Each structure stands twice: as C-alpha cells, then as structure tokens.
C-alpha cells in the first residue's frame, strides 16, 4: 500500500471511505489544509450517521488544535468528533476550520442531537496512527486515517 492516499483522480475537495480489514479507513482532500481537515471530519461522521441539515436542535461547538505536526492536528480534530458523540450524544453536521495565527487551527462545528439523525453504523471510538498520513502534494492537501469502530 502506498504511503500517500490515492486521491489523484479527485479534484477540489472531498472525502471517501476505504476498506480496511480491522475497521474503517477514511481519505480526504482539499485545496488547503483547513479544507482537507474539514473534509476528514465529514468523512468520519459519514461512517455512522446520515446527515441532514434540517435537524431541529442545533448547537455550535468550538474546535481548536494547537500547532503541531499535520497528522497530530488531524488526529486532534477527528478525536473531537468522537468525543462530542461519546460525551454529549451529539453528531456534527457542518464544519468550519481555519488556520490560526499560532500555526494550529480553530473553528467550530454545528452539531445536532443523535436522536435527530439517522444512525447507519457503529460509531468510531479512536483514531489510529497506523498508516496515518497528511500533507501537501503538488499544491493539494490530502490525508488518510484508520479509525477504530
């Protein structure tokens, strides 16, 4: 398996789920790091929930990751999705991620109660460092993470 996610056939920004025998692998890409991170978080939600924007109860929760290696920022944001699901029974439906002045990222996510989305699969519980990758290649950002469900 290559060390970089194969997203060469995708333009702009996006994400997809890829087979992994242990659990689930996600790949995301975007025109910059923030876009790529937001797509990765959306991919993680897609593992377990069918998201609709018109869910009745919506809250905005802050997002932040301090400056560190790109893969660590990726893990921090993905773990935030897992944490709000586990602790608050909340499912993020939209993400806003921006570069912060200190080299980290900041933003927020709109979340809805789990009862207001269609749960379609097991909820991820952790992010693995196995085959974890994030970086800029030919002016595009892409990432890959294996998540434990």
């Amino acid at each position: 398996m290559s060390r970089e996610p194969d997203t060469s056939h995708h333009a702009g920004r996006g994400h997809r789920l890829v087979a992994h025998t242990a659990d689930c692998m996600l790949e995301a890409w975007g025109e910059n790091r923030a876009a790529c991170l937001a797509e990765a978080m959306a991919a993680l939600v897609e593992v377990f929930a069918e998201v609709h924007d018109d869910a009745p109860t919506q809250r905005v929760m802050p997002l932040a990751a301090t400056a560190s290696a790109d893969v660590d920022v990726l893990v921090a944001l993905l773990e935030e999705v897992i944490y709000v699901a586990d602790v608050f029974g909340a499912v993020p439906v939209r993400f806003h991620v921006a570069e912060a002045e200190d080299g980290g990222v900041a933003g927020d996510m709109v979340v809805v109660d789990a009862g207001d989305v269609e749960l379609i699969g097991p909820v991820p519980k952790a992010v693995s460092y196995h085959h974890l990758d994030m970086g800029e290649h030919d002016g595009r950002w892409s990432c890959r993470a294996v998540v434990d469900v």
Partner: protein
Amino acid sequence: MSGPPRLRAAGPDRWRIEATGAMRVPGILFASDVLLPQISDEEALDQVMNVATLPGIVEASYAMPDIHWGYGFPIGGVAATDVDGDGVVSPGGVGFDISCGVRLLLSPMGIEEIAPHIEALMDELDARIPTGLGAGAVWELADDDELTAVLRDGSRHAVARGFGVEADVARCEDSGAMPDADPAMVGERARRRGAGQLGSLGSGNHFIEVQVVEEIVDASVAESFGLRRGQVCVMIHCGSRGLGHQVCSDTVKDMQGSMRRHGIVVPDPQLACAPVRSPEGRAYLGAMAAAANYGRANRQALTAAVRRAFADTVGTDRLDLLYDVSHNLAKLEWHDVDGRRRLLCVHRKGATRAFPPEHADLPDDLRAVGQPVLVPGSMGTSSYVLVGRGAGDAFSSACHGAGRTMSRHAASRIVRGETLRHELEGRGIAVRAASARGLAEEAPMAYKDVDEVVATCERAGLAHRVARLRPVGVVKG
C-alpha cells in the same frame, strides 16, 4: 517491512517466519491449510514481523489462527517482553478497547423451557441493554468518586453496589479487578467518556447472545464447567467503551514523545512503547488496569440487566457465571523462557489467555480442570467453550473469535442488513440490532470459519474444545 513474508512449516498447523532485518525473534503463525490462504496475503503477517522488533521481546511474535490486519499489532497477536531485560509495554499491543472480553452465563433451564418465551425475552433484553450512540447506561454513577471506585475495584465494586452476586467475582479473571490499577493515571477526557457509559454495549462487533449448548465435546470438563447439552446460556461480548479507547489514544501520543529518550525506534507509530519499568510504562499499566476494571464492571452491570430480563420473562434470574476473560490486555506473568523463570509483560491483542490445569491464578474450583476460554463466533454462527491445556504454548494463549476476512465497508456493500436479519430469523435466531448497516458489517461471510479456527487451536495444542454453542437470539450493538 513490506514484501511477502516467507512462511516455513514448523509443526502441525504451525508456520515460522525467520527473524530478518530488525526482527529480534522469529514470527510463529498457527494456521491450518484451510486458513492459510486467508491469512498469507494480508498485511497481518507484516505486522507480526513488525512486532518482532519490539525491545525485550522473547521467544517469538505469535499469531493466532484468527489473525487479521490491525493497526500496529495484528489482531490475534501475542507478544511477551522480558520485564527485567528492558522489555517494553506497547498500548497498541493491548488495543484501543482495553479488556474487551467475553463472559458466559449459564442458565439452569433448557432450551425447551425458554423457547416459548424467546421473543419476549429478546424484546426485554433489547429494552434493557443500551446499544449504540446516546442510549445511556445501566448504571448511573453517583459522582466522580464512584467512577474512581470502579476503576480501582472493577466488578467487585459493581457487585458491592448490587449488580451481581459474590460468586460472579470468584469466576472473573483477576477476581474481578486487576491489581495495581491507578485511577489517577486515567486522563480527564477518558473519565468524561466513561462517566455515562457504564453498563452499555456500544457498537461494532459487540453483542449479547442467548445461546444453547449444541454439542458437548469433552464430557468430563463440560461437567466440571456445569455445561450440559440443551442448556441455555448467555454470552456477553464488550469492553471498556470510550474510557478504554481514550486511555490508549492518550498513551500512544505520550509514548511517541518519550521513545526517543529511551532510544527506541519502531516500524509503525501505533507500536509506540516504553520500558515496563520506566515512568511511562508504569503509568500506562496503571491506567490500563483501571480501564480493564471498568471493562469488567461494564460486563457486570450488563449481567444484572440480563438477569432482570430473564426474571421478567422466563421466571428466574438465575444465571451462573462460568467465566469472564479479556482478549485485549497486557499482563505481568511468570513463564519459563530458555529454561529460566522470567517475569514477562504478555500482550494479548485479540487473543485469549488460556491457563492450563493447576495454574495458581485460576479460581480454586477450576484449578484442577483448567481455564475456560470463551470464543465467540461471528454473528449467527457457533461459539465455543475451550479449556487451557498442555504446555501452554504462546505463553498460554488461544484465539479470541473467528477473525475477519473482509472489511466492514466491503461487508456492508455486499450484504443488506435487513436481508441478513431475515436470513438469521429464518434459521431461528431472533435479532435485535441498533442499525441495519451495523448488522451487515458483522455478516458471517465477513469472517473466517470459527469451527476451523477452533480446530486449529486444538491441533496446535493451544486449547482443547469443551462445548459448542448455537445462538437463538442476539442483541447487536
């Protein structure tokens, strides 16, 4: 460490990968000719070789017959390090779901007595067992101090709070609580994730099954275990929920930072590790033991809910615990290596401890017989009760299940959840599932044949078959 690993026959259903490159010991795979093609093209064997590079590893990097591709360690991997020889502990060798494990409860009733009530029983179990996201938990902890008590005392505290009987504690690995648990080493995020999930099944491959003893293979051991043909039993498979996952996640990050200081290099970041005797190693083992105790208390709280469901529908809550054993854990154990008794840190990641008869750590009333080894099959297929036997190869370890051959993603593309539900119900298995796709992801076709996995364990001398169990109802997380 890529490329096709070279397997050399080394005995009945036993294959050897010679130590090359950075490997400190060989790899040993237990697999039959039937299972081998399902294993040898996987990344799992690369992972067996990667584990063999861990500092202080002794004897071999072992792979059980149900091995499949994990992260860092393969799932179905066993590795022991010499504690007094700078051996390391690796959280990846335990896995995210610390003390994920199985317990088996035995009913005095036969299937003919339960059968008329099975739909009512399954409805009651479905109502009482929290599954999936935001479903709550059986046990609402009073406060943070009570969570600390659970982390310290495991299922003993659960029983003290009315979630079971004293006999349950005696039949739980470590008498219900790992010693040396250090709740102070469990981080704040882990505690918050665990606060509202005690007594919940979660999702993924976790389940509660009502089963019937279909076949007795070893009548003598079965009698000692209290198993008889036609008897109803309940298997609970789950772990330490979000708390255990967070402990693993936190520690992998911390150890990645400390490895350079210890002069350790690993071929996969998920193999991050620290010497057992180092502050980082001790901190992890304290947190891991606390999370394991949470896992045992979780299964104990679910047991209480199952007993209530039985009382309400079949008229008796009597369900005797045969045994509760983890298949994701690292334990400090004494083993003979190269003719010398050594203290080892034995990692079992998707592998079950299988102590032989006369082992000092077995409950008094099981010591003469050996440890029950509980092996759940894939959904809708047989599960097994084995017993630890013989020389205790692979540091007295055996398989933990059927082992995946297909990703969840692939399974859910091939099988529709509702189709599978109808198929299972057509075979007399009542299904209660949190989500249709979750059901599809656990389709039996996504797993190896558990009969072959268990037979391989027996031929390889890891454990001996006692009884085969058939499902009649499943609550799926």
